[in-house]
């Protein structure tokens, strides 16, 4: 088995397994810790509050736009760019169809080349701007730990290798991209990258707690 075959075969499935089991366990184990029942008399429904918080905290609200605007713009730039790339880049669609589910999905939209370029530039610009902010802003410098840096760099490298392989002419470049993505997937469940899932749990708890009180912050 060549290195390329190893990366695109067993390693890929290993990474995917670690990701799925890891993420699943992180969520299940977190919820299993449990939480004492709130015995206070609710002013209104906690579920409504949770749903409200889930949506509300996706956008700036309640003033304090200073720091938020930068994160709002660069954050959305990066995340939207990344999701579009992951889900709709033509090679990814082909990969999903052939390797992951084995079914053709003619209805699944595929990015044209110019769309790929725009999404990739948005994702890179957003990620780099966010990372520069992390390195220069005193508040973020005080907060950051090694996990923040590893997460950013693994993401960056995965994106970069993906774009370097854009010509789709070299198996080596494709394998390099796969390898960096595998590293990212394996690292994911053990890191702050888990915010992709924990955000919903955190927002829901706060939304429910405060929603019962009558105001969802």
């Amino acid at each position, binding site marked *: 088995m060549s290195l390329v075959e190893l990366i695109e075969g067993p390693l890929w499935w290993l990474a995917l397994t670690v990701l799925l089991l890891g993420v699943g366990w992180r969520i299940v184990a977190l919820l299993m810790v449990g939480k004492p029942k709130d015995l206070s008399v609710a002013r209104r429904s906690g579920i409504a509050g949770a749903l409200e918080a889930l949506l509300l905290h996706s956008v700036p609200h309640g003033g304090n736009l200073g720091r938020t605007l930068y994160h709002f713009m660069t954050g959305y730039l990066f995340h939207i760019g990344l999701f579009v790339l992951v889900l709709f880049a033509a090679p990814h669609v082909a990969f999903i169809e052939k390797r992951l589910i084995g079914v053709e999905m003619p209805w699944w939209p595929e990015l044209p080349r110019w769309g790929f370029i725009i999404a*990739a530039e948005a994702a890179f610009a957003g990620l780099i701007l966010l990372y520069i*902010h992390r390195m220069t*802003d005193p508040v973020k*410098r*005080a907060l950051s730990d090694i996990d923040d840096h590893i997460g950013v760099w693994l993401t960056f490298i995965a994106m970069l290798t993906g774009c*370097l*392989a854009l*010509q789709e002419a*070299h198996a080596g470049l494709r394998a390099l991209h796969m390898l960096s993505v595998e590293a990212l997937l394996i690292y994911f469940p053990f890191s702050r990258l888990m915010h992709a899932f924990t955000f919903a749990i955190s927002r829901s708890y706060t939304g429910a707690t405060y929603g019962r009180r009558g105001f969802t912050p």
Partner: protein
Amino acid sequence: MTVSPMEASRVRSPRMKERLLGIVLGGLALAVASLSGAWTAVAQTQAPPPGASAPPPVISQPGGSVRPPAGAVNLPDQTTAGGSVRPPGMSVEGPVGFAPAAKKLGHDSTTDLWRGVREGQGGNVVFPSREAGILIQSEGEDWRVRRNEIVARYGGQILLGILGLLAVYFLVRGRIRISGGRSGRVIPRFTLGQRIAHWMVAALFVLLGVSGLILLFGKSVLMPVIGKEAFALVASASLQGHNLFGPIFIPAILALFVLFLRGNGYGLVDLKWLVKGGGLFGGHASSHKYNFGEKTWFWLSVALGIVLSASGVVLLFPDALADRALAQLANLAHAISAVLFIGVGLGHAYLGTIGMEGALEGMARGTVDENWAKDHHDLWYEEHKRQATTDARMAEVRAAAVGDAALRGAGS
């Protein structure tokens, strides 16, 4: 499409030195002058196609890219010229059927036909493209020689020379220390916005610089070391990466220009600074917020940024152009200004990091030590002390608090 050294030396004519000078001057003019003027400046260095010493006809590919060949070219012959293979509306402009005498292509080709090909006359093609009918664009050979033999060769020497100079300077002068050591008090130097714009440009500088250098020098430097297959991979990756990151550079350098414009106008004090050699060789040279060197670096970056951006856009969409000439010109302008940008950028990076104590933190944390400010920007320091505002006080507090010692324990 490579030229062996032997061939290259044959290509060189006695007029070569003049042309070289013209190209270098043209490149410099490009960097400083506005874009439209610059085009003309370099265009004047265009020489007529080389004569008898030209290599055998090849299909020249623009930009040294690994783009697939331009496509099938159908030279007119009797079997297709009169037929209806070509749908209406797809004929190419320009002289059609330039070789009426040609009966059987490849066997009966005449001198006239090949002269026509050699001079860039167009033929008919079966898909819509203004240029695909051109079998040989002879100016491409000019461009290739200039790129490989002049820009790459002397550009490489310039870059190596600058690295050498910096190394020698470091060995002789050592790290420029803060005279009297650190005061422990800091003053704000760069806003967060300025720092973000700077590091964005710096990040792209590295990404584009590395991939660009591979594209320019890779074939002569890298390929002999890592082999053709590996280089094909690296080149493909570099090209894709370079094309991808390029467009982000434009808004980034624009933001840099807007955020750093203030304080970068020249004044009399800059002349005095220049006379004293900027204190780089000992002594003290007064300066406001930015000294002569920094101001020149700023304006050079802006000028080179404009040339790099404009020529870069041209190179991203070569097929949208009327012909190859502009793309070839853009490629040379891009390479020349990139070499200059990287060369001076090396000096900038040297002074900003290992070359000078206390400089990097200005761009990292936004604040500098007071003694550093007195050393290098005394006039700015005094001005700051005169009009220390509430905001400045806050920034100082923040800066002092973020000092590593203060954060130990409270940080992660």
